[in-house]
């Protein structure tokens, strides 16, 4: 099965990277998070409540909504900050030359395999952010770019909303024994679909091919 893939490209300042990644990833995770499942004896289950909160950006003219879960905020902040630092350190090493990198949010499901083969993670939705760091000369340019990046991210958020609501594949609601194969049950107050965040400084391909997919599956399987 091929995962549904979407690539976003943008050029922005180094200090805007962390907020840009956070705004888009939190929007995605907000859509892909359910309340905690509580199964009952007869197989029925109840679902908890997902709270949300507004978040203002400091370097981008944008306010976005995210799950009001501290655990999720820490995970996204950690990855986004690490990616931002990675890009900016490379920019410093190359003395201000334009640097690019990518960070991906992948939703996957785990498929158990028969012994002795390990289970495998099969991505079903991948969101890639390809970013290029720019160096702006004046404060006026920075102010203009603050608004421009805000508008750009707003367009992405609108696209995410429209995309999420189209009829597309989403893993079926599992039974209790298979809950961990579809959802991340490690959170206390929420239950997002299984996801992982990865990043690198080399450009990523816009579409999958068979070789890349196999290599990635093997890599993901061995890493988890």
């Amino acid at each position, binding site marked *: 099965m091929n995962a549904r893939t979407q690539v976003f490209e943008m050029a922005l300042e180094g200090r805007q990277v962390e907020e840009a990644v956070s705004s888009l990833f939190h929007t995605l995770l*907000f*859509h892909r998070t359910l309340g905690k499942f509580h199964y009952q004896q007869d197989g029925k289950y109840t*679902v*908890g*409540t997902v*709270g949300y909160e507004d978040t203002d950006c400091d370097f981008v003219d944008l*306010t976005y909504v995210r799950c*009001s879960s501290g655990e999720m905020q820490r995970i996204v902040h950690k990855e986004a900050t690490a990616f931002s630092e990675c890009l900016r350190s490379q920019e410093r090493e190359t003395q201000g030359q334009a640097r690019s990198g990518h960070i991906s949010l992948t939703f996957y499901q785990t498929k158990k395999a028969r012994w002795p083969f390990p289970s495998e993670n099969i991505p079903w939705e991948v969101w890639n952010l390809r970013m290029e760091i720019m160096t702006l000369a004046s404060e006026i340019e920075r102010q203009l770019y603050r608004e421009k990046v805000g508008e750009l991210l707003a367009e992405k*958020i*609108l696209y995410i909303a429209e995309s999420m609501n189209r009829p597309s594949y989403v893993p079926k609601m599992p039974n209790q024994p298979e809950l961990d194969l579809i959802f991340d049950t490690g959170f206390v107050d929420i239950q997002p679909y299984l996801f992982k965040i990865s990043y690198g400084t080399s450009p990523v391909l816009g579409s999958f091919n068979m070789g890349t997919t196999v290599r990635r599956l093997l890599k993901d399987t061995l890493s988890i």
Partner: protein
Amino acid sequence: MATAAMSYQSSGITSVGLTIQEQKEIEKYVKFLSQKMVQVIVQSRLGEKVCTPCKANASPSDWFNLGIEDIPEVVVETKKALKGQLLAIGSPPLCVEISLKTVEGDSLILENWCLSVNETSEPFNRLSYTVYSRMSLLLKSIISVSRITPAYKLSGRQGADSFVLCYRVFCGEPHGLGTSTKNCTIGQVDTPIGLYSVLLSYRTQLALSPKDGAMLVKSDHFDHLTTDQYSPRFCRAADRRRDKGGDSSGSGSEPVASDDSQEACRLFVNSPPGNKAPDYQNVLQQNRFSFDDGPKFGAFADPSSARRNLSSEFMLPELPLPTFMKIQSLKDVKKEQERASGGSNAAIQKDVEITDDSTQLTTSLGPVSNSDEFVMVESLKTPFAEGDSSHDVGAFFRECQSAPVSLQSFNRPSGMATLEIGSQLEQFEKDLEGYDDLVQSLGIGADEGGKQ
């Protein structure tokens, strides 16, 4: 209670293949989808940051497993708009209109959110959790998108002194927003009783064009000048949350709407305690700027100035002003000269007689103080003068109170001046040879000096 688990009883089959229980369930879903959609849109325009907690165990009022709190007034307005009817195929869309209103009373529609229903795209034979979860997803999308439109930024800058944002809930076709508009479909949910879609239309530019019948406004016309002087609030959300009690879904709460008109726009302004929020007029009659009604004031002008009588305030008082430029006949000048000095006026009379034939009334005399226009204060005596002010220092003081009536040098007849100059020129012409010899002598002397 909204639960993911459903149990059905075979009590009957509806026309769409659902049981009676399933039919009631789906109708309840649609009803609360409408309610929650209006809630999240209105709450996003309060100008306040929203923060609701995640709960491992849901509360009975947490429809669609989302932490959306209910404002009772919004619940009432939504019910009024729906008139107790279910939003079904063939019924007009449920619209939430967000508009901006200035302190001058002008209003501008910023965006329209519409929940419409059409024929379902695929047949349903049972109600599954998928419909419920997709409705939840649709609400999440509405929540996310409501923060990216221009109206959201304006909501954070509103105040009672500049402008406020208002909302209107109604069933019907939304009003047009002009040419600079963006339309987008947020999402769709296919249900057994119809395909429900949420559409958003919003202005991309707040500047009005003359085509709208109004004057041009800068795109930052409604921006706040300073943020520390205003407390931008759209609704007393905290007060309303304190006031509400019991069933938060609004079915058992007292209606707090102050206007029973369905088309009235609800004004939410967190004005200081004791201040009455401005009354609202029918928004249908004020959906466009109108600058035809009398004088207007700037967006940030003091509104109390509109109630003052400008004409009385700016009317200049009638003050006695001296006549600075007065045209007098020479005869009047003569009389004043005789009155002021009493000395010999022979020279003056001579000048007056010579010029009497030429001009009479066209000479400007400079600043003249007309004694008739002033009240002489007798108590003021000339300093250092004797008791009688008609002699010496007193007379001199009076003469110097104003400029002389006429200066003799400016009263010389032009004819006399012409004669004098003419005779001088004739004399120069006679002496021309002598002047030439002088110049030549000076030139020869210089050459001899240079040679030496």
